[in-house]
């Protein structure tokens, strides 16, 4: 079974995000980068399927030079090969542009199943898996917490408000992964030592038959106008006095000042 994982390198969840005035992207100074945690579920699921049914796992990412580190980590976890869309002309935070570059790459590859995180935790667009499926003309199931593969089809459990929906889809399909699907493994010492020897192929815009005008910032359908930090939280207010009076006072404040009731 040929499995492809779409993954992204993102700032570590512990990073203190900073935005420089006038910039429309977060500052990367002193930031540690990791594999997007939801993509780790995708990699783990791909490896488990490979271990159970055979096949190989290919990782694909779009990003700057440094993103190769995330691919190496995925290879160290056990993936077989990696493709790095590494061209300044690919770089953007626009979901359409990224999905187009990925789908053009995928059209030149063979696959039975594509996995990715349900969202990346940096810009939280939640769109890549779904858009790529649409561009490839294949089904997708999003926010999946359990995946069972049977001959030529997949049964996926997905989280919906207040319950679980069980969906069957023919393969190939795209599954976007949610927390709960599995517990990602750590890269093993042996895996880390082998990762450098595994193929990691860098691709430019021309290599995926895209024209420079349709991918990257040039092909973006959205423009980030401004990016600002959330305002500091104002200090809380303590209402003192006898409980009866205090409760009355709180209701008054909620109605007149906070205007929430």
């Amino acid at each position, binding site marked *: 079974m040929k499995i492809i994982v779409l993954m992204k390198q993102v700032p570590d969840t512990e990073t203190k995000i900073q935005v420089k005035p006038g910039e429309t992207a977060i500052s990367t100074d002193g930031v540690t980068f990791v594999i997007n945690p939801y993509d780790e579920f995708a990699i783990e699921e791909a490896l488990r399927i490979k271990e159970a049914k055979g096949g190989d796992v290919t990782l694909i990412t779009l990003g700057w030079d440094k993103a190769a580190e995330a691919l190496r980590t995925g290879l*160290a976890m056990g993936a077989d090969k990696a493709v790095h869309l590494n061209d300044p002309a690919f770089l953007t935070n626009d979901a359409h542009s990224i999905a187009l570059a990925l789908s053009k790459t995928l059209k030149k590859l063979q696959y039975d199943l594509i996995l990715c995180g349900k969202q990346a935790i940096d810009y939280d667009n939640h769109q890549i898996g779904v858009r790529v499926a649409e561009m490839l003309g294949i089904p997708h199931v999003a926010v999946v917490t359990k995946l069972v593969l049977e001959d030529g089809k997949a049964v996926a459990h997905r989280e919906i408000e207040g319950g679980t929906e069980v969906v069957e889809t023919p393969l190939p399909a795209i599954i976007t992964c949610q927390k709960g699907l599995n517990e990602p493994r*750590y890269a093993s010492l042996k895996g880390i030592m082998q990762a450098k020897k595994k193929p990691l192929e860098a691709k430019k815009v021309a290599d995926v038959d895209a024209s420079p005008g349709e991918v990257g910032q040039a092909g973006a359908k959205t423009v980030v106008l401004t990016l600002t930090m959330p305002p500091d939280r104002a200090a809380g207010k303590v209402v003192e006095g006898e409980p009866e009076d205090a409760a009355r006072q709180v209701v008054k404040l909620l109605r007149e000042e906070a205007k929430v009731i």
Partner: protein
Amino acid sequence: MSFDLTEEQESLRRTVEKFAEKELAPIAAEAEEKGEFHREIFEKLADIGLLGIPCPEQYGGAGLDYSTYILVIEEIAKQCLATAVGLAVQGLPQIMINLFGSEEQKKQYLAPLASGKKLGAFALTEAGAGSDAASLKTTATLDGDSYVLNGSKVFITHGGVADIYLVMAKTNPGEGARGISSFIVEDGTPGFSCGKTEKKMGMRASPTREIILEDCRIPRKNLVGKEGDGFKIAMIALDSGRITIGAAAVGVAQAAFDESVKYAKQREQFGQPIASFQAIQFMLADMGTAIRAARNMVREAAYLKDKGKPFSHVAAMAKLFATDTAMKVTTDAVQIFGGYGYMQDYPVERLMRAAKVTQIVEGTNQIQRMVIARHLLK
């Protein structure tokens, strides 16, 4: 020697850092308080291949150098000294059996130790002899095709939980250091038993226990190396162990430093963060400087060992400096935390207790000074 880590080393360091934050940090404080040994942590370490770092690949290990080993130990020690010391202790019998053991011993013992199926321990210290190994009282007497061991060992890390012990005993009690030999003793051998479990000041998640040998009969083939090789084996083990203890001490110091920086920025007094006071800034500057120097010394000692150059005195210097640094830095960290630092609700109190043992194990820091001076004056 480069100050840069290789791509693999950095990748490994980050993996271990993540492992320690996720698997060790949540349980370290409670395990310390309750004095609980977590065998499953060693299974998890084994799953990612960390228990066989110094063991050659052909015998199931990773066959990596000390320069890489110390990175792993430091990252583990940042969260849990007990686990870091356990990792170092697991490595010692592997290194010694690989250096001195027969092919049969390597085949039989290295793979289970490297894979973590068996835990190893190193049994040198006795009530009356530690660094003064020549004064060992435990004896091993050849009787036909067996050795019969008698005596007792104290302060044995992983005593009672280990499966394979490398035991130092006198085969020729009339001689001092040259009368010592080294043996593999398996748990469960008749005559082998465990005594008192020590109640320690710190590092309480790592069991430290007495082991007792009463007419403990082991096959003759369990002799490691030749009769009389024991002192050499013990000294190499201590030299190597000093590098790993140095690395563990750097980890403890780094953890205390990181906590101190975080706290100094958060804690406000007189209307400003205490980090804005020069008194605190100077403490942090000294702590950071000493940690960096200690780490570099430990790395140099590992480098020399990897290159096959004389490293004994540098290992002693690194152990001395890194563990004294850990003691000083953790003490200052408690001071920066003030009253809160003395409470068990904050981690620096545990780190300060942890630091103390590093000044004592693998030869007290007074012994290290003796080793260093002997080298300088020869």
